[in-house]
């Protein structure tokens, strides 16, 4: 299982962050940055970042900060 915020999502081998956001969230494309097990990962790296079983993912809303 993977925890996305407070939600549990089923894990599968080879799963990437891009897969996770597309499969588990209706609004996955809203997120440009997530925190995966404490480390920030940005959208350009979602497709190449593997998610381990038991991972904790926090969704970081970044829209108009700065």
């Amino acid at each position, binding site marked *: 299982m993977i925890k996305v915020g407070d939600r549990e999502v089923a894990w599968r081998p080879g799963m990437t962050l891009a897969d996770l956001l597309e499969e588990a969230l209706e609004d996955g494309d809203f997120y*440009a940055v997530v925190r995966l097990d404490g480390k920030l990962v940005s959208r350009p790296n979602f497709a190449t970042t593997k998610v381990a079983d038991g991972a904790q993912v926090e969704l*970081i809303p970044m829209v108009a*900060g700065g």
Partner: protein
Amino acid sequence: MTSISLKEIKTFTYERPAIERGYANQTLYIDLSRNFIEIRPVSRQMKDVFIGGKGFDLWLLWQAVKPDTKWNDPENAICISSGPMGGTPAYPGSGKSIVTALSPATGTVIDSNVGGYFGPYLKFSGFDALQVQGKAGEPAVIFIDGVEEKVRIFSARDLPDDAYALSEALTEHFGGKKRRYISVVSAGTGARNSLMGCLNFSWYDPKRKRARYKQAGRGGIGTVFEDKGIKAIVARWDSVSLDTNNPADKEALKKVAKLHSREIVELDPKQNQMSKIGTTHLVPIMNDFDLLPTNNYKFGQDPRAILIGREVYEALFDPGFDGCWLGCTVACAHGVRDFVPVTGPYKGKKVFVDGPEYETVAGCGSNLGIWDPHVILEFNFYCDAYGLDTISIGTSFAFVMECYEMGLIDSRATGGLELNFGNRPAALELLHQVARGEGFGKIVGQGIRRMKKIFAEKFGADPAVMEDIGMESKGLEFSEYMTKESLAQQGGYGMALKGPQHDEAWLIFLDMVHNFMPTFEQKAEALHWFPMFRTWFGLCGLCKLPWNDIVPEDNKDTEEPAKVMKHVQWYAEYFYAVTGRKVGPDDLITMSEAVYNFQRIFNLRMGFGRREHDTIPYRAVGPVTVEEYESRRERYDRQLKEKHGVDIEGKDTAEKVALLRKFRQELYEKLKDAVYKRRGWTADGIPTLATVKRLKIDFPEVVEVLKANGVTE
């Protein structure tokens, strides 16, 4: 108590008024040329139209100066104000001060927003705003003592020259055992010897037992401060509670403050973790999206960014509470304990560094090709201590380094400094030279606009190339974001009233990453709403971070997630709770519009404020050089083919650079048209008479400025 020698030359005794609904209802005027002190009333109209903070500052400055006033004329005024909500201890981010003056960098109005305790202490001492004109004959310390109800002017010859030691010494001298009740505003030698001086606003950190500070960085107000012969302005107040600001509806205030404060405590650890790492999380994120300025904004990405990112500073920051105002749960003002500089007057001594924030990391790090977190800390420390703006220093040094690498200037110009990107010792030596006003540093401290002229006249550098790569607009250096792929943010910088600072609009993610505003009209709407709402924080004494850096978990499901409307509604309730004026979200925008348009007309009065002044260098718009184009060739080739319908077969890179430039510059001009129309301005970027009437700023002198510039409808 530190033994420092201050000679009292003027004492002014007053009766402190009760604060009413966030206002003291009077301002403090000081003319240092005459040692004259006077209290002036705040009118109902001032509160209705200008609200407070930046609005009050602008109104006072407008009265103080004439169209031909220069930044170093005695009549130029430094105005400091918090705002009606400033000084509320329970609502996050409610301790800001806004400073304005005529800027040595731009020649027109500059405003800068800063934390620290000064603004609230000034208000609770009895003054909504402070206005200082004139020039002191000897270095002066102004002491506004709300406890003793006295304003005193001292002459001070032997005080420390740098803000780091001076803040500490004056906090101890005036605070004794109650240092928490002191806030010091000071600049430093760098501010005196350059045109990019900042002001340091202190707050006392009881846990670390030291004065900390935040900076009003932009536009050289610290230079004006030094030019006036001011060594420091000190405010003293007593303990602060919710009652100190005497809000109109305390229960409503408690309720809304609790909601926002608790939400931050709950969500910041899940989101940006600003209470742990400040804004340093932006470094890796900007790098990933090709937005981290690198080597004078040539590139937006470098694999070494990880060396100066979030993890590194998280390890370096001294853990503990770092709120720059009481009760702020964002608490992002982090610092590094026991840092030991390797150069300059503090070489080998342990110091506390207040920072760095993202802007300093990018400006004095990646943009200079410096990937060393300790050198960035050293820049941070000395810029603060010398009273220099880290953004203008970083962006100016980046320009110099590119000029040096391009051969536009050589080591004869730089006094032997080899200013290649990444040369850490040379960059630090240049910083000390700027602060001392010596050698090549004396030229660099003038800022990019003047450097371009000096390099052309003195060293024969190509003016056209420098126009393209010198990252300034209106005379102010750009802050630290890449804008080449975000037309909206090009507008956010280019059409910002004071010059290219991101505090008016930060639209890169909305525009480039999320593509939420594909049309010109949508971009123009964003370049109306966001600058207006962000302006509102500066009217009220607030920090904008709690608004949209930590957002409700259901925000993404709202109609306009970028605006974080739940928080906007809270701010409307907060405004009512303090001032008693019932308002909704739209009213907040209208309040800002009045002040925003007034500032645009103020610019016009000073000879700026037209379409031509919203020009930005091409480096902010697209690739200037073949090297830049080639580094992102796939992206640019695709745009030429798919977006602009160009057959690129057989065209060399130089031709493609020229074609892309033509298209992108046309788009920027079209954006200006759309934004001016949305804001109710003429095609030349001037507010129409109908606009100023709608906003109730049609004072005779405002209408006269419009008429003098051909606007009569």
